[in-house]
């Protein structure tokens, strides 16, 4: 109940009641707004910056009010980056430095969806196009070869790459969450951050895949180099998340990350970049070469 001595105490609007009692026909509007009341109270308390207290209370509670996931604004949060951020993150994913955790150094609590999505899309088209070109160059000059653009392979490449870049982080995130329940870890990554790391770690494959020179050893070299770089970025990132854990778990997680990476790289290489056949005399073995067209 408002005490009459304190002039700053909020007092009920008494006029509305008396008005209603006097004349039933008159309409009165009473705005009951909790925020306005409390803001008035805060202002009266001598607080100069009501917005400052709003921010402080938000920060103190540690949670920002996030819009629900079916609204547009929810996803706008993940595109809050600038051109130089994207450049830095791509370069950071290509050059792993021991001790530099990608998530801590580059993401800094601001994971984005732009990088993973567009790097995956670029990689899909890069694989399809350069696989097509390398196929063409391998069979160049053979009399029975008919060039086909092979657009079906774009779908296959897209399925493989988007599965790797989105389902593997989901599995890894679920696994880390489960381990986190058992062992209190200081380091915990959100799903978006894991997706971000995986997406950016695929960026090293784009230049590796654009090597269309038909020398087998050159291709394998570039794939292996790309594999090592991207694998080490991933391992270094997740090392700190599992290092407190049981050593068996550490080995399982690390080897799973590496093995999946290797599978993706080798699988794409084998499927899209057929082995160039050894240079035989074309005239004599033209018939056998036609029957041995690699898929």
């Amino acid at each position, binding site marked *: 109940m408002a005490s009459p001595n304190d002039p700053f105490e909020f007092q009920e609007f008494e006029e509305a009641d008396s008005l209603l009692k*006097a*004349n039933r*026909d*008159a309409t009165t509007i009473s705005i009951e707004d909790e925020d306005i009341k409390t803001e008035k109270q805060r202002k009266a308390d001598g607080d100069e910056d009501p917005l400052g207290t709003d921010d402080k209370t938000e920060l103190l509670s540690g949670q920002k009010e996030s819009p629900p996931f079916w609204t*547009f604004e929810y*996803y*706008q949060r*993940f*595109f809050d*980056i*600038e*051109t*130089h951020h*994207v450049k830095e993150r791509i370069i950071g994913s290509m050059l792993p430095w021991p001790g530099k955790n990608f998530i801590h150094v580059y993401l800094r609590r601001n994971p984005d969806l*732009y990088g993973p999505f*567009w790097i995956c*899309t*670029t990689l899909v*088209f890069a694989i399809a*196009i350069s696989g*097509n070109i390398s196929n063409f160059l391998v069979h160049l000059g053979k009399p029975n070869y*008919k*060039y*086909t*653009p*092979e*657009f*079906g*392979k774009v779908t296959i490449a897209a399925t493989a790459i988007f599965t790797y870049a989105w389902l593997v982080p989901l599995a890894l995130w679920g696994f880390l969450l489960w381990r986190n329940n058992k062992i209190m870890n200081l380091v915990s990554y959100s799903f978006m951050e894991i997706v971000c790391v995986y997406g950016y770690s695929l960026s090293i494959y784009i230049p590796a895949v654009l090597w269309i020179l038909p020398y087998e050893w050159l291709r394998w070299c570039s794939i292996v180099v790309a594999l090592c770089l991207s694998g080490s970025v991933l391992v270094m990132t997740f090392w700190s998340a599992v290092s407190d854990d049981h050593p068996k778990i550490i080995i399982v997680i690390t080897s799973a990350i590496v093995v999946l990476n290797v599978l993706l790289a080798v699988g794409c290489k084998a499927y899209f970049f057929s082995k160039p056949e050894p240079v035989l005399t074309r005239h004599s073995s033209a018939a056998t070469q036609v029957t041995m067209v690699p898929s």
Partner: protein
Amino acid sequence: MAAAESSRPFSGLSDVSISEDIPVEGDISVPIDSSRKDDDFSTLDEPVKETILRDLRAVGKKFIHVLYPKRSSALLRDWDLWGPLLLCVTLALLLQGGAADNDDQGGPQFAEVFVIIWFGSIIITLNSKLLGGTISFFQSLCVLGYCILPLTAAMAVCRIVLLSGSGKVSFAVRLVVVTASFGWSTFASTAFLTGSQPPNRKALVVYPVFLFYFVIGWMILTFSPPQ
């Protein structure tokens, strides 16, 4: 008493009557506009040819804007999707009839071209809106669709070149034509789109457009002629 009276507005006037000796007469005339606003939007009275030609003229005007891309708001202000539909269907039809149609792993089917163009445009529009662009959804679709015009023209030129043979020379000519039209498309669409983007994210918006037209250009370049 006074409160009751004042609370009912005009309550004191209920017993006022106009005496009969005060003449109340005059003229009331409403100036009627010769061209009423309604007529501008109602096209029921004009011949059908006029309606269709008006839309065609708008589409043609936008084609010219794409061919000479300079910063003008006509393309953005009155957006329409007729032009993109026309271009998409033309391009998809021109990409048919290749030798690879009969194979399983052949050229793109009609539906694939359609899906790539429209789905790609929608994704690029969503991307630019998520990055904080002020352009509206359909305006962006309109711009991206109209800027396919140089690539469609290149496809027509390629088919004509392929009529004369598919050797190295024709490939070189087609490569030059497709590259030039791809550059033109990208330049035209960025001229219209980058104005509405925040300055430090322009490259992030331009890159997907580049990728989009690159993929379309690739489809045009790898079109193999029917035997």
